[in-house]
């Protein structure tokens, strides 16, 4: 990372810390509304002086500050709270929109009630009386209402903007974490050291074969490092990594394990999460076929079915014994797969664990089909 990027990040961290202080945040926030009030006061004062050049400054100052503070300190927190509750999702957005339209009325009435109270108090201190609307209450209320509709929607839109930004950033962070975890899973120390041990054993028996294994491991590491930073890669790339992985696993656990890879040509160019298959296959090795001595078999399949990419990994081992929650618990190797799918596809994916009728376990992943 360059020095420029580093210092920029430092600056952001410091600002985050600054606004993380609750008291200071409120001081800054109040100052911002004071500035809004003062700007509006300047405009109002000039407007009055255009008509009567001797107009005093305190009445427009009272009007504008009372208006700004009632909105900023009273109504904004209330409206932010309401906006967080009225979600804009499929099925709820129309109701939320209507609710917001209706809520502009009480919003404006509360605004008027608040600022009129303050104004009456300040006028009374000056020995005067404040008369809202000069006898035409309805016209004045409508006047304020039209201005408040704008204010209302600005607050709502800014709140929603923050909400989406935060959600997006969190999603990005979680995805990055899952990717990093995935890289760690691939470069699992167990796998690495056991593979090195296998190679060290092969060196005494067959130097050529040992050399082949070193090359396979290097290719796998390179491919892993290259693809793990990308959320999605063409399935073809993932299958190449899987081939290397399988070669190594076969050398470690004898060649008796039969592995069938059955991939539709149309599935090869589909986008899939990088290195999605390897943990599933590793799982089939560890919990499936490793426990049977003869005729072990792992089947890997990929097909495109009605705009959906379907990935299957099955084995003829003892099958899943535990309920789904346990399978997703930490340490089983599939929890990270589940969380990556959730980050990338939300509810547009499925991850199923089943026991095949003829015995053995099967994991099926379905994600939307997109061509690379």
């Amino acid at each position, binding site marked *: 990372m360059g020095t420029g990027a580093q210092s920029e990040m430092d600056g952001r961290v410091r600002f985050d810390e600054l606004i993380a202080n609750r008291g200071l945040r409120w001081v800054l926030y109040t100052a911002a509304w004071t500035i809004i009030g003062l700007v509006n006061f300047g405009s109002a004062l000039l407007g009055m002086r255009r008509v009567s050049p001797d107009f005093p400054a305190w009445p427009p100052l009272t009007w504008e500050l009372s208006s700004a503070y009632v909105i900023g300190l009273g109504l904004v927190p209330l409206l932010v709270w309401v906006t967080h509750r009225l979600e804009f999702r499929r099925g709820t957005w129309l109701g939320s929109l209507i609710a917001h339209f209706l809520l502009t009325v009480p919003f404006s009435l509360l605004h008027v009630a608040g600022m009129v109270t303050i104004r009456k108090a300040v006028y009374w201190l000056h020995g005067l009386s404040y008369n809202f609307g000069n006898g035409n209450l309805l016209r004045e209320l409508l006047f304020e209402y039209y201005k408040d509709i704008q204010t209302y929607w600005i607050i709502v839109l800014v709140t929603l903007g923050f909400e989406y930004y935060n959600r997006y950033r969190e999603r990005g962070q979680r995805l990055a974490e899952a990717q990093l975890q995935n890289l760690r899973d691939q470069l699992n120390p*167990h796998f*690495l*050291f056991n593979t*090195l*041990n*296998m190679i*060290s054993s092969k060196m005494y028996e067959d130097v050529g074969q040992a050399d082949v294994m070193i090359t396979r491991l290097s290719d796998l590491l390179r491919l892993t490092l290259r693809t793990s930073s990308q959320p999605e890669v063409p399935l073809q790339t993932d299958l190449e990594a899987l081939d290397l992985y399988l070669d190594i696993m076969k050398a470690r656990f004898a060649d008796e394990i039969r592995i069938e890879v059955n991939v539709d040509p149309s599935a090869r160019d589909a986008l899939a999460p990088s290195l999605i298959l390897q943990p599933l296959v590793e799982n089939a090795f560890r*919990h499936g076929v*490793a426990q049977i001595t003869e005729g072990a078999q792992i089947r890997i399949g990929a097909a495109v079915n009605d705009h959906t990419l379907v990935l299957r990994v099955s084995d003829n081992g003892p099958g899943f014994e535990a309920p789904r929650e346990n399978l997703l618990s930490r340490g089983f190797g599939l929890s990270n797969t589940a969380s990556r799918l959730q980050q990338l596809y939300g509810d547009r994916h499925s991850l199923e664990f089943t026991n095949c009728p003829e015995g053995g376990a099967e994991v099926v992943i379905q994600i939307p089909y997109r061509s690379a």
Partner: protein
Amino acid sequence: MRVLVVDDEPPARRKLMNFLREERDVEIVGEAGNGAKAAALIEELEPDVVFLDVQMPGMTGFEVLETLGGRVPLIVFVTAYDQYAVKAFEVHALDYLLKPFDRDRLQTCLSRVRDQISRSAGADLQARMQKLIAEATGRAYATRLMVKHHGRVVFLQIRDVDWIKALANYVELHVGAQTYMIRETLNSLESRLDPDLFARVHRSVIVNLDRIKELQPWSHNDYLVILKDGTEIRMSRRYHRNLKDG
């Protein structure tokens, strides 16, 4: 020394055995590719030393040791990477090998083994192994037992055992309608059982607390323990405390 080699990866076993064959005093008596076979071979062949892989599917190296009653051979753990296990080894194990290892490292290990055999500090080793297993697995008590039954090796879940009766140097495990025998003293077995699950009710009887249906008063302060399957066991006075605490 008679050696058993246990690892789920054939090349890993071959490497270790090739190295060991170069040693004049080493006789390889067997090899096993999984935990269950390892436990059975330890019982059958009674090796002096076992090179035991930790991470194996089905039953880990630690779980193999848990199932062993009676004499435990010298264990050298062999592992690729397991930070918790390695921590436990450093404290309690005789020695361990981290994969991949070279001849020199194996030599160092073998000289330690020879040293230990000549001193034959068996009891001390046994206690160290128990501590190591407890630390590395996070459990202080056995979860399964290995028994021989009609020539087969059977692994019993500890929870499934209803009650246990001592017979001289053997104990009789009652599991439903079945009865299994293992060669171990009741005291030694009791030390491997979780006191929250099992209690001694008699000099020669331990019962699974979950199986107790009721206690009936018997003559002079003794009680009769009645199990859910109807079995009646007399409880002697000195063991009352074991049940009343629970």
